[in-house]
């Protein structure tokens, strides 16, 4: 991971600091938050003044009272996670990737951000001053990996901005608690006398996992930068979003179209440069009166063709009510996919692109996906013998069964009444919708059993019959004659 930089922030008294922000009178007072666990009142958070008297988190409340009889006890169970999230959202101005690091910290990927403030020192000072001004006691450190930054924040006096590559010289001197390990592992390390990280490094790597589990090596590698650590940003990045503010509010369809074209030009240019294509586009029109009108367009394959996307929006532009005028347009591509330029020729070239664009236009016009491609399904029961898929997956190695099947299928089958000699002769005539058809020729029967693991309909005996005019029908008898229920006849399809 060359070149990456991370900032770790540690709020030393997060909850109590927040309480003091709301109740400045409690500033130098010793107070604790208490929660009830298993019939015991436990200190969940203690203020700095209380800590100086020896009260700490996890202590039984009555013990705390012994140490400091007039300690103020506050009810409630503040949620540090929620508070951290709120703070993290405010830090999005420093970097797009801000992650919450429970219970009391933030991790920020500051790669490529610090130079905007004129270097890491200025960046660091700006952030720390801002937090201190907000009334929070804080420690922060910058290093090459998130793990190292976390360790330095909590265990290194100075320097707090560790230059690139130097985290490897500082880390071994720190205790194992700097590695974000679970208590069980820390306890075992302590009992083995490994009080510094360098003691762990002295051990052969292969023995570590059997003795301590995977976690130790993972944390060690993350701290030293041997494996990647992914941060989960509080605000998922929306990388493809363009804004177009208007000097004068736009009220005409022509104006909206012009704005859309401009936005598409910028967005598609960017997508093309990065080898991507969009699958969904979202146009938002912010009106003067605060209302937001929006249009979406979806495509079945990644595209960055301006003319095509414009066509998808074009038909629906008149549905936007401009009201008193639109002052801001934003165009966003929430769903994008990699679309290397060579892909079109691989995928069947110009024709496939044209068809995909045609299908997108249908979806835009009718407002729903109305098309499908049929593939064979592994079922004998006729209604289940095919499945529909989206047209983008065209090639299939599956083959259709060669049994004669009708070209039209009635779903559900249409009931008919027949005259048929028993036990299994084809009918002599049948009546369908008040018309009598005389059977002139017949093939069958072919039995199709139901799949008992799907449902329990009765087996069907199918006959292909031809009437005197030559029309060919697919009819079946549901069930056996011996059953308690009488057998029923149905017309299921028409042959060509």
């Amino acid at each position: 991971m060359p070149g990456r930089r991370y900032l770790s922030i540690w709020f030393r008294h997060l909850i109590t600091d927040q309480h003091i922000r709301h109740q400045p009178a409690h500033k130098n007072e010793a107070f604790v938050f208490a929660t009830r666990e298993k019939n015991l009142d436990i200190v969940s958070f203690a203020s700095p003044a209380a800590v100086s008297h020896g009260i700490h988190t996890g202590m039984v409340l009555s013990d705390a009272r012994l140490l400091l009889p007039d300690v103020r006890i506050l009810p409630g169970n503040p949620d540090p996670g929620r508070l951290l999230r709120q703070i993290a959202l405010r830090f999005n101005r420093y970097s797009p990737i801000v992650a919450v690091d429970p219970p009391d910290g933030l991790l920020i990927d500051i790669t490529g951000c610090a130079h905007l403030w004129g270097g890491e020192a200025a960046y660091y000072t700006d952030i720390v001053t801002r937090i201190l001004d907000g009334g929070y006691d804080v420690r922060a450190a910058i290093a090459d990996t998130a793990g190292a930054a976390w360790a330095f924040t909590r265990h290194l006096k100075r320097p707090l901005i560790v230059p690139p590559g130097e985290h490897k010289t500082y880390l071994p001197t720190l205790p194992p608690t700097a590695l974000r390990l679970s208590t069980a592992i820390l306890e075992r390390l302590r009992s083995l006398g490994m009080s510094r990280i360098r003691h762990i490094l002295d051990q052969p790597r292969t023995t570590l996992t059997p003795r301590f589990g995977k976690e130790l090596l993972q944390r060690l590698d993350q701290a030293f930068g041997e494996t990647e650590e992914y941060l989960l940003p509080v605000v998922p990045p929306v990388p493809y979003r363009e804004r177009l503010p208007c000097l004068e509010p736009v009220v005409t369809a022509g104006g909206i179209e012009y704005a859309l074209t401009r936005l598409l030009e910028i967005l598609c240019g960017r997508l093309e440069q990065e080898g991507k294509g969009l699958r969904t586009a979202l146009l938002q029109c912010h009106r003067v009166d605060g209302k937001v009108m929006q249009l979406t367009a979806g495509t079945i394959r990644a595209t960055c063709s301006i003319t095509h996307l414009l066509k998808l929006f074009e038909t629906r532009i008149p549905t936007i009510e401009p009201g008193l005028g639109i002052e801001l347009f934003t165009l966003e591509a929430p769903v994008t996919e990699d679309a290397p330029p060579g892909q079109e020729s691989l995928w069947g070239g110009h024709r496939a692109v044209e068809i995909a664009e045609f299908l997108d236009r249908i979806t835009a016009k009718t407002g729903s996906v109305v098309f499908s491609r049929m593939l064979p399904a592994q079922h004998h029961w006729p209604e289940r013998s095919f499945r529909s898929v989206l047209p983008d997956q065209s090639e299939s190695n599956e083959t259709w069964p060669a049994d004669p099947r009708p070209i039209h299928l009635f779903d559900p089958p249409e009931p008919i009444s027949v005259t048929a000699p028993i036990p299994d002769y084809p009918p002599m005539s049948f009546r369908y919708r008040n018309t009598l058809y005389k059977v002139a020729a017949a093939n069958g029967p072919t039995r199709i059993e139901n799949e008992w693991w799907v449902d329990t309909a009765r087996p069907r005996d199918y006959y292909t019959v031809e009437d005197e005019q030559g029309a060919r029908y697919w009819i079946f008898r549901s069930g056996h004659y011996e059953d308690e229920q009488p057998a029923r006849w149905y017309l299921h399809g028409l042959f060509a």
Partner: protein
Amino acid sequence: MSAVSNDTIQRLRQELLLIEGYKAPESDAPDIPIGPLADAFPNRRFPTGKLHEFLAGTVQQAAATGGFISTLAGALLGQGGEAIWIAKKRRVFPPGLGAFGISAHRIIFCDIRNEKHLLWVTEEALRCTGISAVIAETADIGYTASLRLQLAIDESRVTGFLLRQSSTQLPPIASAARWRISPARSRSPIPGLIRVGCPCWTIELEKVRNGRPGLWQLEWRAGRFQPIEPATVALPYPERRRKTG
């Protein structure tokens, strides 16, 4: 008479076609094997890149027409590309298409409830040169709408098939050919037994531009059109059944 050679007649026919304003299909257009039907068409070639209209009065005729169109679309797809089947309510049973030389996964099915949207989609599909064949099931189409479809085809050279099923008389539309396909009695594959054989159709070409209308009785056997051979005469089915039991 015999002095006038066949070549001369051919040449004169070509000239006549040019005078009549016939636009031949492009030389790279697929040659559809249509067997005896070829006699009806100019240059004995099935007119691709045109609008074909199919009339069906009953559901049975509609099914027969579906089969007939599938054979044509299957041959068109042999050259690559895609087919689009547009309908209000899909009745086509995909496993049944294989018998007509077309695999169902080469077709994109569009189910469109709204009649106006259906015509719009059909027109858009006909404009799209990546598509080889457009099959649209709609009875409700006026003369003006058909002209629009015709114009779209003139640019793209896509072949369009309009299946119009209605029990009542339908208004005429602009099309290169008007067909009426009805099912016909099939020939039993096993002599002496009364069985249902290969699909047989009575094909009526009511109107064709620059060609000669006609009536055929053909059988779709082994992947091509063949004249129905005289059926082996057998007793009508019910009598025979009564006799045996």
